[in-house]
């Protein structure tokens, strides 16, 4: 999954450096705040650990072997922010010192494996482990699932990056200038190896290590982030009231601003319905918005068929029982935002770690 130089265009590399830099900046800020002077040696040594684990040849069922990234264990023990830094530093050493992965693609590699991998691993582990006891077998299973899903999520993002290259970067004769395969080739090709070998290797090493730590070093599986001293709380678990309050204000402000959306005229490009394709006025708008390319004469069969599968309760952000479009639009926004808040609060309750019922030794 280590992308070498030359597979991605300069603009893709720059964009992914920017994405990764956002993760590095936030992670460094949070880790320094939580661990203060302890952060540098802790992250450095754990980055070295991640580096070494990446070299392990993990025996897999079927007699073959594979390499793990170690991102799941890092995310479970350090939390997502610590994991982002440790894995990124390990990847930087691999690229700069051992030539494994490119320099221009370092941002992409860090984004895929460190940022996406850490967050997916942490989220899936917490969701799957739920409130289970710290010695529970469910945690071993949760680590395996988190390992498998996180590596495949990282591989999927990598495949998307490869897959968009020929569409976006080709010369006049249609020759792809960077990674040559489109999405329909890049995604299955990339996922095949990760759904079988690499995902399994990460699952095996994550589950095996959690199982080992349950017997030998339970402290590392406790409230993550306590690993160094038993005192420092995990950055991701800290309930920072001030930040939350700011977030609520931002959400409220966005809700107040929702009627601005009504000012946008027409339908968003590519979001046309069957009715839009049949209507002469909207057909003219589609043609104008598509560089004077006329839309198909009849509604494509697939679109026609699928358009009846699901009917939204608030089609077009306009509930049928409300006559004023502006009020309906605002109400839809409030409903949507409220639904998201409820879902995230539910996920938080489900994913909350075991508390006093499962005390650490």
């Amino acid at each position: 999954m280590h992308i070498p130089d030359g597979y991605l265009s300069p603009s893709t590399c720059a964009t992914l450096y920017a994405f990764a830099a956002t993760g590095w900046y936030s992670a460094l800020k949070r880790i320094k705040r939580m661990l203060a002077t302890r952060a540098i040696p802790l992250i450095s040594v754990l980055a070295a650990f991640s580096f070494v684990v990446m070299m392990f040849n993990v025996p897999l069922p079927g007699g073959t072997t594979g390499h793990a990234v170690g991102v799941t264990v890092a995310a479970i023990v350090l939390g997502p922010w610590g994991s982002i830094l440790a894995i990124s530093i390990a990847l930087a050493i691999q690229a700069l010192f051992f030539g494994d992965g490119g320099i221009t693609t370092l941002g992409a590699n860090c984004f895929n494996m460190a940022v996406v991998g850490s967050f997916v691993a942490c989220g899936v582990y917490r969701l799957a482990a739920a409130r289970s006891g710290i010695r529970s077998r469910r945690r071993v299973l949760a680590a395996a699932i988190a390992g498998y899903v996180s590596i495949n999520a990282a591989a999927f993002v990598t495949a998307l990056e490869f897959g968009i290259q020929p569409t976006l970067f080709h010369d006049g004769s249609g020759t792809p200038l960077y990674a040559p395969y489109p999405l329909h080739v890049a995604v299955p090709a990339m996922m095949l190896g990760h759904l079988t070998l690499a995902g399994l290797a990460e699952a095996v090493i994550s589950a095996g290590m959690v199982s080992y730590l349950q017997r030998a070093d339970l402290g590392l599986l406790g409230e993550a982030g306590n690993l160094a001293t038993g005192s420092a709380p995990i950055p991701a678990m800290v309930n920072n009231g001030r930040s939350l309050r700011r977030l609520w204000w931002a959400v409220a402000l966005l809700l107040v601003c929702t009627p601005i959306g009504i000012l946008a005229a027409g339908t968003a490009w590519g979001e046309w319905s069957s009715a839009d394709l049949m209507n002469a006025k909207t057909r003219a708008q589609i043609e104008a918005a598509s560089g004077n390319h006329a839309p198909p004469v009849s509604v494509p069969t697939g679109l026609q068929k699928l358009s009846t599968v699901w009917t939204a309760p608030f089609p077009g952000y306009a509930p049928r029982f409300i006559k004023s479009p502006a009020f309906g639009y605002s109400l839809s926004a409030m409903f949507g935002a409220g639904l998201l808040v409820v879902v995230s609060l539910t996920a938080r309750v489900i994913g909350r770690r075991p508390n006093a019922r499962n005390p650490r030794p």
Partner: protein
Amino acid sequence: MSQHSFIESTLQAFTGAFSKALQSEHTANQPGLLQLLDPRVRVIGMLALVVSVIICRRLDVIAALLLTTVLIAVASRVSLVSLATRVWFVILGFTGLIALPALFLIPGTPVFVLPALRLSVSAQGLRTASLLVLRVETAATLTTLLVLCTPWTHILKALRSLRLPAEVVTMLAMTHRYVFLLIETANQMFESRQSRAVGKLPGSEQRKVTARTAGVLLSKSIELSHEVYLAMLSRGFHGEVYLLNDFRMRLRDYLGLTAFICVGGLAAWMGR
């Protein structure tokens, strides 16, 4: 899979890492063209050339850049055999394999047909595969050349002078140092496990051995970080990181920097 091949291949990976590090250290201390230049010039110069390789869209310009890189390698006393085994053959095997189907999958003007398979190679497919392989070969050679001709500590100092945060540079330096310590520790654990193994280990046991070793290594890493932290505190560390910057630019460094930027800029312009 032979009974302990997973241990042996892991041990081989460890040995390979040590060998690469030793080779880099040896070459970096040889007198040569790149070694004569200030490390900052080497880092900026090589980075400029890598970026120009990525920007280039013309095969002949990228080939010219590869030739320039080879000439720099010869002038810097880097063995071409080691470059071939460490970079060129590895890239050719990996990227070549990835690029191969592009010859047939990319639609375009047919150049020739493989009679046995009835597959036609398109001009566009041939060009995209060549572009990919040549670009990856050139960029990887440049990066390897930088690593082979510059001690790691100098690369880090150069990165610091390029405004990389001091904390990040310190973490990179410490990680690099402890990578080798942890490799040595893991190496000893695997060797001792292998020396005690009698008969064939079943697959599940092999997985347990790997997971246990990784688990013990994690516990040792945490302990090590405690010890390093205490050692840092005992030396008066209070969160601020200071790095010495004793590099001095001379006339030849300015000339080298100008040459790198000119070559990189020219290649990027010609290869548009």
